[in-house]
């Protein structure tokens, strides 16, 4: 129920601005409504009258009225209300309008206070009604339940508020919600929720009147139309007007050029793939070429070739996905020269018996380095800059910061004189191109690089240092046993870490959830 009267007549100072602004954006429905209200001037018109006189549908009226009210061209008086009746087939009628809780009181007065007996009492239709009676009896403070018996309290001698309202309703047939007092209002809310008691009917009683601003605008509208040298007015240009030259004698209605419109469906690249492409472009600009390789690798290339001993915990099932199959499955191994030199370097340095059967199992690559290293073995470049951004796998429990599959970015630079200072230089340039200015480098450890560094970058948005990529120079144990002559500078790390910063995500899983609203909502251009 509302009794609103909209804001009154508009601010005279800006009236002229408003007139010219409003007039350009009047919709035919608005014009139609104004044309009804205009001649009435100071007189209110009801909803029903307006519908009748305008010939518009209820829906059109509702929309038009909303727009006009928003523009302060009309005022609305809303005296809508709710009429309350007893339900036509109210179950109360059958028993003289006695509520179940009153029936219960009568029942107990007869000396019947055991619940089981009450349920059997002829007064009640079913046990549901008894339970309702007990609930409301308790609410009214009429009864006290002890074990399986019910006792009356003094309050039960008086009418409850609900009974009072019912009595009033029986007397006068119907009541208006706006006429109820507070306690009646509460009783109404309670009775409304109980089955088969009340019926309500909404009464709309709205009235409209044109404002001064509305009058001015309608005046202006009329003059404009009249002063138009007798030209016809059309809503929009039609093809036949163009073909038959009719447009020369036409004037076009001003349409609402400011109204917002629904967004269109569109096709789009995945935001993560898109960002990967942007980063690829940075690297290509720095002279790196992209390489690609398999996601499934032998343990040899994933571990052995990178100087990770066969008894090292990194190779445990807990961290690595080993592949299984109903058929026989054996990963291809390199030629015997390489196997021999790698096994020797393992045995000499790590003091254990290297076993070829530990090199054969297939794994899902835990890093991208097996691809890089195989590229170097195959191409044997004296100098090269290559990179890849590809999936890697870890057997971890998925959480907001861990995925089992994610992307790793890795780049290498090999040259006769490649050195640590250049590695720091390449990394700094790459970060700068991503927009990162504050960078720290610390020593760290990786099994296959030496010296090894990790980098921390300062993120302005989160105002904190974040660990990003690791880097180092491939150990001679790795390169020499694989026949790679020159030092190889390598750097890399998880790509999703960058993507979370880029897309402002707290939960890494969102990148792979494929929520269409999110996919469509991520702006294409970096802001």
């Amino acid at each position, binding site marked *: 129920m509302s009794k609103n009267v909209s804001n009154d007549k508009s601010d005279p100072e800006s009236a002229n601005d408003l007139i010219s602004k409003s007039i350009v954006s009047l919709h035919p429905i608005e014009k139609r409504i104004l044309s009804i209200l205009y001649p009435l001037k100071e007189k209110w018109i009801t909803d029903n009258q307006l519908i009748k006189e305008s010939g518009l549908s209820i829906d059109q009226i509702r929309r038009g009225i909303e727009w006009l009210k928003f523009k302060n061209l009309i005022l609305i008086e809303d005296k809508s209300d709710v009429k309350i009746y007893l339900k036509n087939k109210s179950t109360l009628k059958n028993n003289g309008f006695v509520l179940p809780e009153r029936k219960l009181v009568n029942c107990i007065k007869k000396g019947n206070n055991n619940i089981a007996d009450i349920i059997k009492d002829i007064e009640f239709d079913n046990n549901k009604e008894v339970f309702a009676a007990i609930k409301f009896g308790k609410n009214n403070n009429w009864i006290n339940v002890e074990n399986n018996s019910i006792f009356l309290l003094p309050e039960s001698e008086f009418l409850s508020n609900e009974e009072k309202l019912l009595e009033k309703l029986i007397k006068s047939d119907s009541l208006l919600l706006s006429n109820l007092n507070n306690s009646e209002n509460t009783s109404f809310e309670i009775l409304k929720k109980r089955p088969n008691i009340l019926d309500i009917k909404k009464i709309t009683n709205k009235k409209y009147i044109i404002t001064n601003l509305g009058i001015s605008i309608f005046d202006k509208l009329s003059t404009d139309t009249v002063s138009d040298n007798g030209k016809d007015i059309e809503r929009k240009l039609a093809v036949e007007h163009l073909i038959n030259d009719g447009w020369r004698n036409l004037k076009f209605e001003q349409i609402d050029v400011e109204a917002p419109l629904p967004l269109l469906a569109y096709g789009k690249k995945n935001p993560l*793939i898109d960002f990967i492409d942007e980063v690829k472009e940075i690297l290509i600009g720095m002279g790196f070429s992209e390489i690609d390789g398999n996601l499934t690798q032998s343990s040899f290339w994933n571990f052995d070739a990178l100087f990770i001993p066969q008894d090292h915990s990194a190779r445990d099932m807990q961290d690595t996905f080993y*592949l299984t199959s109903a058929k026989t499955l054996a990963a291809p191994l390199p030629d015997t020269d390489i196997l021999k030199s790698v096994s020797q370097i393992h045995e000499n340095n790590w*003091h254990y018996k290297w076993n070829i059967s530990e090199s054969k199992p297939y794994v899902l690559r835990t890093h991208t380095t097996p691809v890089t290293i195989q590229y170097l073995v195959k191409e044997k470049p004296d100098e090269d800059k290559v990179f890849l951004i590809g999936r890697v796998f870890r057997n971890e429990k998925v959480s907001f910061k861990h995925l089992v599959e994610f992307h790793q970015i890795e780049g290498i630079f090999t040259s006769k004189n490649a050195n640590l200072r250049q590695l720091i230089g390449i990394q700094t340039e790459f970060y700068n191109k991503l927009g990162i200015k504050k960078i720290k480098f610390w020593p760290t450890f990786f099994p296959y690089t030496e010296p090894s560094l990790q980098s921390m970058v300062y993120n302005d948005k989160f105002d904190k240092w974040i660990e990003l990529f690791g880097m180092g120079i491939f150990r001679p144990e790795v390169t020499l046993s694989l026949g790679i002559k020159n030092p190889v500078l390598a750097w890399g790390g998880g790509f999703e870490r960058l993507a979370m910063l880029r897309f402002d995500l707290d939960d890494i899983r969102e990148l792979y959830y494929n929520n269409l609203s999110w996919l469509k909502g991520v702006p294409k251009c970096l802001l």
Partner: protein
Amino acid sequence: MPVVKVRLSSLSNSFPNIQLTEIIEKLPYIGLDIEGIDEKDEIVRVEFNPNRPDFASENGILRALRGLFEIETGLPIIKNIEESSYLINVDKTVAEIRPIIYGFVAKRENYLDEYEISQLISMQEDLHNGVGRKRKKASIGIHDLDHIVFPLEYTTVSKDFSFIPLDKQSEFTIENILNDLDTGKDYGYIVNNYDKFPLLFDSQKNVISLPPIINGDMTKITTNTKNLLIEVTSTATKSAHDILSILSFELHDMGFKIYYMRSYSPFEGMIKAPSLNPLKMIVPVDYINKILGLDLSNEDIIKYLQKSRCSGKNMDNDIECIVPSYRIDIFNPIDISEEVAIGYGIYRFNTSSPPALYFSGKKHINSKIFNNIREILIGLGYIEIINTNIISRKILDDFFLKEKNNNLVGIGDSKNSEFEVLRNSLIPSIMSTLAKNIHEKYPQKLFEIGKTFQIQNSEVKEEWFLGATIAHNNADYTQIKSVLESLIRYCFNKDINTPGFNFEYYINGHSAKILLNEIEIGNIGEIHPQVLDNFKLRTLVSAFQINLDSLIKILNLTKMKYL
């Protein structure tokens, strides 16, 4: 990475002239990660890398910091290791199981305190997990010397031998220990392949330890302990010496006097431990400067080595580098160069402008082709999604793709039930994406470019695929086929043939193979209602998938040229 707790008071007491904040700021520059500072317990928790087990204690970290702050530089030395008659006799029956046992004795006037005991135990654990390869390669016993009568005997016993294990009141047989105690269950497998088990006795036949599983209770260290026996059993002599070396320096820094102990074994003869001879390596000065990109003088290099607690002798073009025996991570000249870099200070490296060489970077040919395909599909209104390569068996079952010919690649011991197999088709993943988006607006037009996996000739064959679906209440074969034809025409100016073929997951009579130049590259059809129902979709879906590797090969796209 393992974590060690360092008391703030130890830091400020060791470096009274340096601000605590400055000390903490420098920790990363010796390779330590600060995990957090606990103000209440006045402790800084630092992570150390597994190659530096000497950092498993506060003393090891202080030793390195004293070098970095130039309070004490060069090689740390344990003066006067005492001679002694302590002896372990090794029985030949341990030969195959765990042949090596070395040890030493450490004595001090005052008793161990709680903090020292906890540091020793956590260091022991870190050594077990790292160098000891979870005790498989080497394990350590730290004992109260004063309950032990020499000489010791390292031999084997059968599984019904019993003794009182650490922290127990009653005797357990070895069999019970292996079956019932946690350490027995965790490490029993290491020695379980033999019918005999290694055991260390003293001369009174009291049990000192059952390596690598548990110690005897008799020699337990407490706050009433001031003299220690340290023993390491192992399968590799180097690992045993490495561990004893790290522990010697630790106990020396704790104020203990170290005593030699001898092991007499039928395999090696008489071995004296600990063996703390520093490693000597001759490294060319040029090598160090070249790999670091610096121009350091011989004197500078020696100075930085000393800051890293190594030392060096100037030999004109070379440096003879001397490395303390506990630095088990240093064994190659490249490791020396890192020590020089750390002594110099990583933070002092100014960046070198990238090498003045011409490199022309380019994208991989696949990336170019895939982006062209993306561009056409996006123009046709399609949204790109990405899914994981590992999927659940259920998704495959729901799509009727549970592999009948055993070519499916499985995943061993996954920690997540939704990651069980490598997908052999992209469409099931796209279907589950549709299922997740039933509340979004239709039509939904999706595509994915990803890999599929199957076993071929005992090897895993990985192939790039494109999958595309259209979903709405009137989706049908003609719509998706028109997308496919548009794609192939706009992208490659080719036509495809689609001879009808029935697939379990498409509606009979509404599906086909896709042929390009007479070669099969994929399939297309209206998804079967049972599949739609399995994915709880209440709208229709049509799909196609094509093998991009085949397409690239047929059209010879890798030879793509601009002119």
